[in-house]
């Protein structure tokens, strides 16, 4: 009992004598204490009961004092991926950098990292340092395959794998993962890689219409009528198959193809041939007959004239084609 009263009297001294048994009672960790609204006289006595107006059972828990930030104990050669292994919001006590962010006050600097909301709001890449990326990629390397070394140029790829299928994937945040545009499939290939003869090629071009580009000789089929990408891909391959086989077929009414339907100009049986024949026959004044016509056709000047006219009609007018036509006409009419 005497001991008990002695202890009580010592403790009630409070601030006056802090060193009991060589231990600093009031501030055992030698940290700066903050002035609070509470009276410091009974701070040691009422350690378990801070005066908050008795709001409930939970304020009976003693408030732990915040320790040193982790940055004080970080060695320079530490393993950083252990501090930030995954994407985490910015923790100012874990990042040993003197980062400042925010709009500065007048004649001031951006605010420091302690209690800075701007640093927490922005996504940080602290978990993706180059070292961490290298470690991740080392773990992922066994799942990758190598590109076949024989297909190093674009030309070789096009020769062996001429059909190109294009589709898009979308990643975004929202209430739903799905994006309806992901079902669209584009199929592209060059008609030169298909086994088509002259008639089949022309028929194929007529069948697809807008989907064929003459300059690059590319057929592009776009399918989006099915809800699933696999279905659209199957439909595109089906369309390609049907087009191919249909273009090889010869219908009875295709024989009624007129000159207006022809894709390119052919000189035989054209008004140009008839005109030049009649002109030459009249110039020759050597008599008419099939033999004379055929002999005229065989002549090199007539061949040149035919080439120049065909070129003009198919390729359009240009400097060189006009010159070629002029020379051919001069030779033919002996000007």
């Amino acid at each position, binding site marked *: 009992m005497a001991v008990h009263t002695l202890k009580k009297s010592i403790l009630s001294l409070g601030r006056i004598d802090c060193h009991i048994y060589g231990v600093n009672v009031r501030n055992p960790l030698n940290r700066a204490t903050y002035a609070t609204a509470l009276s410091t006289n009974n701070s040691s006595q009422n350690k378990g009961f801070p005066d908050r107006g008795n709001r409930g059972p939970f304020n009976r828990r003693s408030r732990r004092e915040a320790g040193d930030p982790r940055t004080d104990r970080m060695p320079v050669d530490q393993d950083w991926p252990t501090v930030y292994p995954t994407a985490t919001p910015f923790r100012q006590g874990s990042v040993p950098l003197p980062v400042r962010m925010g709009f500065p006050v007048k004649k001031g600097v951006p605010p420091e990292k302690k209690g800075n909301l701007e640093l927490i709001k922005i996504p940080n890449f602290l978990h993706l340092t180059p070292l961490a990326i290298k470690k991740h990629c080392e773990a992922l390397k066994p799942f990758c395959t190598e590109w076949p070394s024989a297909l190093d140029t674009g030309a070789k790829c096009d020769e062996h794998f001429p059909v190109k299928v294009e589709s898009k994937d979308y990643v975004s945040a929202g209430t739903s993962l799905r994006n309806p545009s992901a079902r669209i499939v584009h199929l592209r*290939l060059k008609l030169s890689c298909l*086994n088509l003869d002259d008639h089949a090629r022309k028929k194929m071009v007529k069948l697809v219409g807008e989907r064929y580009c003459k300059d690059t000789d590319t057929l592009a089929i776009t399918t989006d009528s099915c809800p699933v990408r696999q279905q659209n891909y199957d439909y595109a391959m089906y369309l390609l198959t049907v087009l191919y086989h249909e273009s090889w077929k*010869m219908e009875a009414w295709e024989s009624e193809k007129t000159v207006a339907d022809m894709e390119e100009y052919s000189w035989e049986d054209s008004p140009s041939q008839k005109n030049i024949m009649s002109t030459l026959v009249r110039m020759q004044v050597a008599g008419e007959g099939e033999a004379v016509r055929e002999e005229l056709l065989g002549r090199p000047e007539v061949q040149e004239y035919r080439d120049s006219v065909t070129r003009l009609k198919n390729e359009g007018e240009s400097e060189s084609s006009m010159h070629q036509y002029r020379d051919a006409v001069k030779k033919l009419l002996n000007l």
Partner: protein
Amino acid sequence: MAAPVVIGRNIRTFGRIFVGVSQSSLQGSIGLNACRYHGRSTLFRPLQLPAACLHTGTFSSSLPSSVIVTEEPDTLYQKVSVLVKGHDKAVLDSYEFFAILAAKELGVTLGKVFEPPKNIERLTLLKSVHIFKKHRVQYEMRTHYRCIELSRVTGSTAQVYLEYIQRNLPEGVAMEVTKTSMEKVPEHILEPMWNDPPTEEKPSHIHKLLISAPNQDDRTSSPETGPENMLVDNGQPEQGAA
């Protein structure tokens, strides 16, 4: 002291099982791997992990083969184009650095890396709830883009790279991936299925056509009448005799 050592070894093997079996829980496995690099930390720290690991199965002391090789041929991608969109250019800069380094480490050939021009959407609204038409407020939404093109990637590599990239996509950034795959010409298109050699279309050979036409009509059975009708509608216009 033997017991903690044994547990430690088993935990390490279990970590490898995670790496192989569940490719989807990549982050979890990376976390496990990260914990393994502790080095000098006590073995008591990894002891926290088995509490979660124990649910999935038994420990196996032998290393399983974590990579599964299937027989189906790998798809070949001529080009994989990754377009990222975001409101903050600095975030996209950091993400580009990350994506390029990841591509280099995984051995993926990079094509172009460029920045398409930003897109600003502006709207003008009334400042006040009621009247004051002359006083408005203007808002704008800026979308910055970054495009990373990979050329000549195999399907497995593309899958691994894209999954890694997408799992580390920051908040507020969207991605659009365009894949162009290369394929061979399908076998059923190599040869036409009609046995007749195709005849020429010149009018001087009409006799030949008239002879061969009935044969073709026999062969074109009912399923073909659909496309034939379509061809009649869209085909060459029927003009007068040439």
